[in-house]
């Protein structure tokens, strides 16, 4: 039972990281109608800048404080220089251009930081583990990640539901021309939305830094999961991103954790292990297919 709770927390934590990534991607995709494959690059930039500043200053918080504006700034520059020319063009052009950006950023990090993966430490005040229940030990840092993710989800909800800026962004997603005609600087608004999205990706990256290897190309592995999340959640919907991310995180983790045990009850151990490991890596795609059969536009479509 304790193992189930622990694996549940692990799934939640993976889901939260995915949420930070997918929130930004779904905003850009849903509101600006741009497919941005390079979203993982901003995750990588966040991790690299965070790790570098944290190592130089010795402070994790300074690392985070540097990573967020760096990712946001890079995002806004990319929007201004590249994506702005692509709004009117087909999705295929956007895919090509942003795929090119992935390679550009991967090589750039290699040129700046070299091929050596960087080291980023868990800050002392978040190090160690805490006993949540008798016998259930969990790393404090992962709990902190869950906490930050939940806080971000609430603030995003507040931003979109309660503020004027949020209202303009939502309106811009529905009818870009009309919002422009009403006197809103839609170009600036898009740049801001894109910057917000990449800021969240940078946050996800810098928080992943102490857990994962900070290396060139680290964004691609999470990018695929992120796309699965926004397709399940419904493109353009923050609520969908939350639901999709938690669902994917849980299914992926619980599948990896418990499928082998389930299959061992049915087959001998070597067959069970190989079937279970294959099925566990397919689990989220099966989930995606199942969701799409029932709800072709995702769980919470933005414009239904």
């Amino acid at each position, binding site marked *: 039972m304790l193992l189930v709770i622990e694996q549940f927390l692990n799934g939640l934590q993976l889901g939260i990281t995915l949420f930070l990534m997918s929130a930004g991607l779904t905003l850009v995709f849903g509101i600006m109608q741009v497919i941005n494959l390079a979203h993982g690059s901003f995750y990588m930039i966040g991790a690299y800048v965070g790790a570098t500043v944290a190592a130089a200053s010795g402070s994790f918080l300074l690392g985070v404080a540097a990573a967020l504006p760096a990712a946001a700034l890079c995002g806004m520059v990319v929007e201004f220089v590249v994506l702005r020319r692509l709004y009117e063009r087909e999705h295929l052009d956007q895919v090509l251009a942003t795929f090119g950006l992935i390679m550009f950023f991967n090589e750039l990090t290699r040129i700046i930081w070299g091929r050596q993966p960087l080291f980023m430490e868990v800050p002392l005040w978040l190090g160690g583990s805490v006993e949540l229940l008798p016998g259930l030990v969990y790393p404090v840092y992962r709990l902190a990640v869950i906490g930050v993710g939940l806080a971000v989800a609430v603030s995003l909800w507040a931003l979109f539901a309660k503020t004027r800026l949020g209202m303009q962004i939502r309106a811009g997603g529905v009818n870009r021309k009309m919002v422009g005609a009403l006197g809103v600087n839609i170009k600036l608004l898009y740049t801001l939305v894109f910057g917000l999205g990449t800021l969240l990706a940078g946050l996800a990256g810098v928080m992943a830094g102490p*857990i*994962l290897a900070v290396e060139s190309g680290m964004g691609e592995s999470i990018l695929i999961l992120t796309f699965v999340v926004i397709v399940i959640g419904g493109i353009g919907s923050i609520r969908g991103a939350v639901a999709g991310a938690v669902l994917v995180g849980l299914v992926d983790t*619980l599948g990896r954790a418990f499928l082998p045990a389930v299959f061992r009850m049915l087959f001998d151990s070597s067959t069970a292990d190989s079937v279970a490991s294959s099925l566990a890596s397919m689990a989220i795609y099966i989930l995606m297919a199942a969701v799409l059969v029932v709800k072709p536009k995702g769980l919470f479509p933005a414009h239904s």
Partner: protein
Amino acid sequence: MKKVVFVLFFLAACTHLAIAEPVKIGMITTLSTKAGYLGEDTRDGFKLAIAQEGGKLGGIPVELMVEDDGRKPDKGKQIAERYIKKDKVRILTGIVFSNVAMAVVPKVVRQDVVYLSTNAAPSKLAGKGCSPNYFSVSYQNDNLDEVVGQYVSETGHKSVYLLAPNYPAGKDHLAGFKRYFTGDIVAEVYTKLGQADYAAEIAAIRAAKPESVFFFLPGGMGINFLKQYSQAGLGREIPVYGPAFSFDERILNAVGPAAVGVKNGSQWTHDLDNEANRQFVKAYVEAYGRMPTLYAGQGYDTARLIGSALKAVSGNLDNLDAFKAALKKADFASVRGNFRFGTNQHPVQDVYIREVVKTDTGYTNKTVKKVFADHVDAYASQCKM
């Protein structure tokens, strides 16, 4: 006028004789992708040997050509094709990954070309698929797992939890460990290739309570696993072991304190006590400003082996059999000290257990124990040459 032309021709012919064409060596290696540092170290180790002789190996001028395979078998094949057809290269080397090697090596060794492996040495090429034109200077892939299997048994651990990515090399490496481990296998878990988060597996390990954990997770996967394992507080309770691939100096400096004390298997460490190794480590640090990894050591050894054979045939590759015979003698001072080729042209060498330590210059390994002396790989008997 005729005279002048004749003199010019004569002069041209003379200079041609005086400055012999350098022997071309074609290196196919992985310089891009996340794994790019492996090729970088292989190349830098190789280059160091050439630089130490002022552009020569064994006194023969050489020209090293380097191309990036991007970890893709197809690209590796194309590069090999170009080296052989266009550049007329007879000596190929440098491939890091076994899947690239399997695409390139069987094809090139059917031609009149010698391939020397600086790293990848899949079982197929050591056993039934062995070839007189193929030499592995590094090891046979399983060796570094076998040594850990033997050591973990000797340590008295009665059970082990196995972890590797779900692809052919993952299964091979675990098979290597199991060949020498005498205790119980609690579980044999195969994870997704390139997996980032190991929280689920670590929780399962905690619940299964094995006496030890053995993992083969090369590159970033190993960094992720080791960091997360230590953060989960398991590092103090259940010791982990692995082959050297997750414990080279580049990876260790990205893992940080989480790896300190972990024991791993390798055929080389910077502290091996022999003259060739001492001067290599010193020269490498001076040239590149970083500690050499085992890949750098393998690149360096390969270059010096080629040097010894070139010297024996005075740089003449027209008779490739003589060159191969000279290679097989392995008449060079290896940084590993003890080195010779077995019947399948794979190394017969000592294999060690070493331990991760922190020094003033960062994280590195220190040799703990020689577990195998003159170790022969498991496939040698299947090789009919």
